[in-house]
């Protein structure tokens, strides 16, 4: 969805930033947003992650980003626990992204 949104709105994005914190996502506030997402999954949350997003994008945007991160903590569990998988066609569409981020090593990549 990130690549799709960027391509359809002519906005630059470096997808490698999803996997590598050292890569600039080229999205405004991208480093901070990606780190907030990573923190959502960690057991011990770095509570400054929110403040760093707020410093760059404003507190309202930071709250919205928190909500997105929380939603995907839910989506990920529901999808994985019910065995929802990509169709073959969708997987073919995403093969470049899968290779770029080495997603084939994920347990459900099967």
């Amino acid at each position, binding site marked *: 969805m990130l690549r799709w949104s960027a391509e359809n709105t002519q906005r630059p994005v470096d997808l490698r930033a999803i996997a590598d914190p050292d890569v600039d996502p080229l999205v405004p506030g991208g480093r901070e947003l990606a780190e907030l997402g990573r923190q959502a999954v960690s057991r011990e949350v770095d509570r400054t992650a929110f403040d760093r997003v707020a410093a760059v994008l404003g507190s309202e945007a930071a709250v919205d980003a928190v909500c997105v991160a929380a939603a995907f903590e*839910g989506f990920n569990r529901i999808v994985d626990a019910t065995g929802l998988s990509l169709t073959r066609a969708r997987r073919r569409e995403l093969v470049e992204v899968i290779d770029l981020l080495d997603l084939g090593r994920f347990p459900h990549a099967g």
Partner: protein
Amino acid sequence: MFEPWDVVGIARYERPVRDLNDRHCGTRALSGTDSLTDLGAFGAFFVGKVTRMEIDGPTLRPEVADELAETWRHLGAPGTWWEGRQRTALAEVARAARHGAAIPATDLGAAATEAAVTVAAHPARTTRPWVEEMVASIGEEPYVELVGVVSRVVVADTVARLLGAEPAPLPPPRPGEPSRVVPEPRPRRIRTWVAIGNVLSPPRTLALVPDEKRRTNRLLQALYMTWADMEDPDFRRGDLHRTQIELVAAAVSYANECFY
């Protein structure tokens, strides 16, 4: 003077009253409250009647606050296949597992406990044989409801944690029998590990338990965007553009090793 309303709120800062009829939420600046007597820890979720509220700093969107409040109200109530006390126990187990704490003793049974722990803490470790084992032990519909309950607790706790708040106290269980409503027609199992029907998309995954599906989808749409908005690559939520939203989503999914 002010009408009470139900609210779930998280706030980390203070600022003067903006609009007392606004359904935004706060924690430190709440005053004139009713039935919030023991929920006053800084940063906690609140569920209760609020008669006056002062807000400072970032606040949850009203629709998000409403859905979080509804999630918490519903958590302790009888579900479709689990009693209120069992749903609360599932939440307790899930919360402990997610945060690496000791798993509390409950009467859920080994399979339900294992399912709640795995979905909460290690969702990517699920496999078809494992799900089949869980379903054989607790039933397919109860397993689906469990997935919904656990996921919504994780969602609510994640909002709190990222905002620097403590997770909300679990609601007291309410008495009553599960409704045991079966959808008609019952969805078929096609490619997934549980029956979701022939539309293979996240909104359908809990189709075996319509009430859980409806509530979970409402919460996730409030937090992320509506299914209709998902069609718009240029969608904005406030100051966040779709690319920024999807970057957060991708970072979470990558960290969870979620292939989908």
